[in-house]
């Protein structure tokens, strides 16, 4: 039905869609939880924040889980190499994520303020660490990751955990944190009531332009100081997946795709301008539009990162030929095709019932409602 090359391209897009789904949905609850101590001064205010996301955080998190599963199914080499190579970074994310499901569920099960404060800390840190690490990981992809394959395609990572924490990657990490905080704030100004809403509004108006600035800074750094990668042998887009059958060379910068397709410059333009629009819409008290604008800016940022790296998924700084690209790190044609049909069937269904669940739970969470009907809320 589809040829191998098309399937590989489609799956590159689909993984992008899942990552965007994750960042847009789970992104706002990560952001809201990071803002918990800052925007929620009293226990009721914190419960307002938590209850805006209470019915949805679990469904949102599945975007992340499914993106992981899709990586395993569609790009097994990327899944194997990235998860084992970034061992401690991944475990850090995992240990941090532990505190979210139980934090949400257990926090308000006891009246003790100490108990609740501890869970609030867990929720805040548990949301901050993944946001930071995902940004750091993306930053390292631009720099290249020190791994190689042996003759039987066994991946070995030769760097250390600390090497991941270099200045450029940390800048990307910071950008990711600010992006999700800003997104969380646009959610809270739309869905929270009382003082929390006012504070969220200030936060959104402030952090959105910060995101633009950080993106410009990271972009300039990338253009001026970071060499790129290119496939130096002929690109065979429908051969069996064997990364070692190509050769790779370093280039001056990562902007070869932009030279070939100048219309791609729209992506960085959107990525920088949309957060400013978010800020403007926030000041105009158009909260629904501000949230939409924030979601679109996240989409632009992820697409920008993906297309800049294209066709690379995970370049190797140690052994250039080991670099993983979307042409040589995928599953077989049959698996990609079957999984495509599964996605075509299920994703519209998922979107439909997800929208229904938001529709049913829509409305501002007011502090008075929490205080008068304590048992029905988290």
């Amino acid at each position, binding site marked *: 039905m589809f040829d191998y090359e098309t399937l590989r391209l489609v799956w590159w897009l689909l993984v992008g869609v899942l990552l965007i789904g994750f960042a847009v949905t789970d992104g706002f609850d990560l952001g809201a939880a990071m803002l918990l101590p800052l925007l929620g001064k009293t226990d009721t205010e914190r419960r307002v924040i938590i209850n805006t996301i209470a019915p949805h955080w679990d469904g949102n998190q599945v975007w992340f889980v499914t993106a992981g599963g899709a990586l395993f199914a569609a790009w097994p080499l990327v899944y194997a190499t990235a998860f084992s190579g970034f061992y401690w970074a991944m475990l850090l994310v995992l240990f941090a994520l532990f505190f979210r499901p139980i934090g949400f569920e257990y926090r308000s099960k006891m009246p003790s303020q100490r108990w609740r404060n501890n869970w609030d800390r867990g929720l805040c840190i548990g949301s901050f660490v993944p946001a930071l690490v995902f940004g750091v990981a993306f930053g390292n992809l631009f720099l290249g990751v020190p791994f190689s394959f042996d*003759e039987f395609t066994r991946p070995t990572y030769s760097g250390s955990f600390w090497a991941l924490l270099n200045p450029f990657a940390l800048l990307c990490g910071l950008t990711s944190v600010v992006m999700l905080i800003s997104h969380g704030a646009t959610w809270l100004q739309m869905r929270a009531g009382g003082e929390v809403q006012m504070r969220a509004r200030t936060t959104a108006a402030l952090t959105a332009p910060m995101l633009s600035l950080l993106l410009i800074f990271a972009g300039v750094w990338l253009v001026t100081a970071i060499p790129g990668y290119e496939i130096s042998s002929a690109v065979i887009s429908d051969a069996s997946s064997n990364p070692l059958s190509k050769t790779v060379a370093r280039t001056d910068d990562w902007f070869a795709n932009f030279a070939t397709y100048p219309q791609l410059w729209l992506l960085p333009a959107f990525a920088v301008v949309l957060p400013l629009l978010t800020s403007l819409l926030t000041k105009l008290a158009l909260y629904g539009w501000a949230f939409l604008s924030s979601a679109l800016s996240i989409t632009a940022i992820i697409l920008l990162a993906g297309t800049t790296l294209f066709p690379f998924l995970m370049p190797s700084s140690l052994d250039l030929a080991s670099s993983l690209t979307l042409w040589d790190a995928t599953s077989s044609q049959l698996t990609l095709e079957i999984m495509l049909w599964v996605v075509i069937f299920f994703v519209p269904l998922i979107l439909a019932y997800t929208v229904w669940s938001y529709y049913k739970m829509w409305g501002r969470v007011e502090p008075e409602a929490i205080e008068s009907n304590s048992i029905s809320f988290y």
Partner: protein
Amino acid sequence: MVSETVVELSRWQFALTALYHFLFVPLTLGLSFMLAIMESVYVMTNKQIYKDMTRFWGKLFGINFALGVTTGLTMEFQFGTNWAYYSHYVGDVFGAPLAIEGLMAFFLESTFIGLFFFGWDRLSRVQHLSVTWLVAIGSNFSALWILIANGWMQNPVGAYFNFETMRMEMDSFTEVIFNPVAQVKFVHTVSAGYVTGAMFVLSISALYLLLNKDVGFARRSFAIASAFGLASIISVIILGDESGYEVGDVQKVKLAAIESEWETHPAPAAFTLIGLPDQENQTTDYAVRIPYLLGLIATRSTDTEVTGIKDLITASEVRIRNGMIAYGLLQKLRNGEDNAENRAAFSAVSDDLGYGLLLKRFTENVVDANEEQIKAAARDTIPQVAPIFWTFRIMVASGFIMLLTFATAFYYTARRREHKTPWLLKLCLFSLPLPWIAIETGWFIAEFGRQPWAIGEILPTYVATSNLTEADLWMSIAGFASLYSLFLVIEVYLMMKYIRKGPSALETGRYDNEQQGGLQHV
């Protein structure tokens, strides 16, 4: 090459995190269906008490569910972090069910669980009931796909080895889905989950009845649990796992180990009820045998043989020698001697490549293995017999005690005397740990019995790990152990607190503890 210690520690980490995860999953599977049943009764009869039951047991469900979600994340990460070569080698086949599990099951379960807890006032009664059913169906779908993945590890069908990509690739998705091992595992495992949910409700209801608290609430819960539990335990036992042991060598080895059956006996074989397996001398001491029974159970016939361990080892040795040839040809193919002759020769023996890889533990080059190493690798194809032999007996004994408990509970409930029968209530209360004992031992038999393979006959566990250091593993195990211990203490504490409160936790003013000041003395 990876050190033996790293392999051992990776196995320990996976086993501990999987067993821990599986403390919570079966209760989710069973309780979600019981909630759906209770709420169905509520919608049909419009009696408030059934809504209260759904909400109260739903609270306990939520405390359990949160840790299920938490520890499930570990399972998804861990294939990549700790079993990187596995992930590469079989991701083409194994990744698909995991991704489908996310799309088909997790989204359904997780989206609607939010509406289950917070949608009581926002949904119509029928809408909320549908939501509850969708949560139950979603959690059961997830069991289906994870067991299709696990069934493939036990009996890898529908795939072939591609030397160009150096991995297994799918050639029939329907074979992967309709893998007989996966199908029996699914039925067996979800039924075990239903038993767990039923026993949980049965025991706690028995506690309330013993204490004479919220009797009407507890009796209705007890009745649903005893009926649902009885049907489920019968399904676990009758539709048990054993029919899956006919397929594939790994399953045959497992069956022989469960029975500590060293020799191949003429059909129908005797069943070893109990005895002392002796791995060193390949005998079972003090064995008590029941004639014909094993042959009947395992092959469902009187004339098919059950292969003994010694014969299985001999068969493995032949395949290991073939595997050495396959490995040598693979090296040629990968190093530029890719011609028709080598391809033909390789495809003749490529099914035995996995057996060649077993030698990796003894010699890096495989093709230069000496007789002694081949013998050692062949002996290695049999897991330690005694642990499997014993855990199987513990599992089966737990199952039969539960059958007895549920049957008695059901009988007395039908005669409306259960609340006046203290010995029965105590039996139910003290049976609480049994489903977990049965489930954890069952898991152990399935996965420890699969050794030395990560993927049966395809990929030895020894070569499946990531290239990590021992220090990495010690530290991550310490991290998991401390966090998981902390979470378990918190979870059990919250469970006990809410069990003590009973339905009064709903703060409706209708239940005993709100009127009499609590069950704090329990």
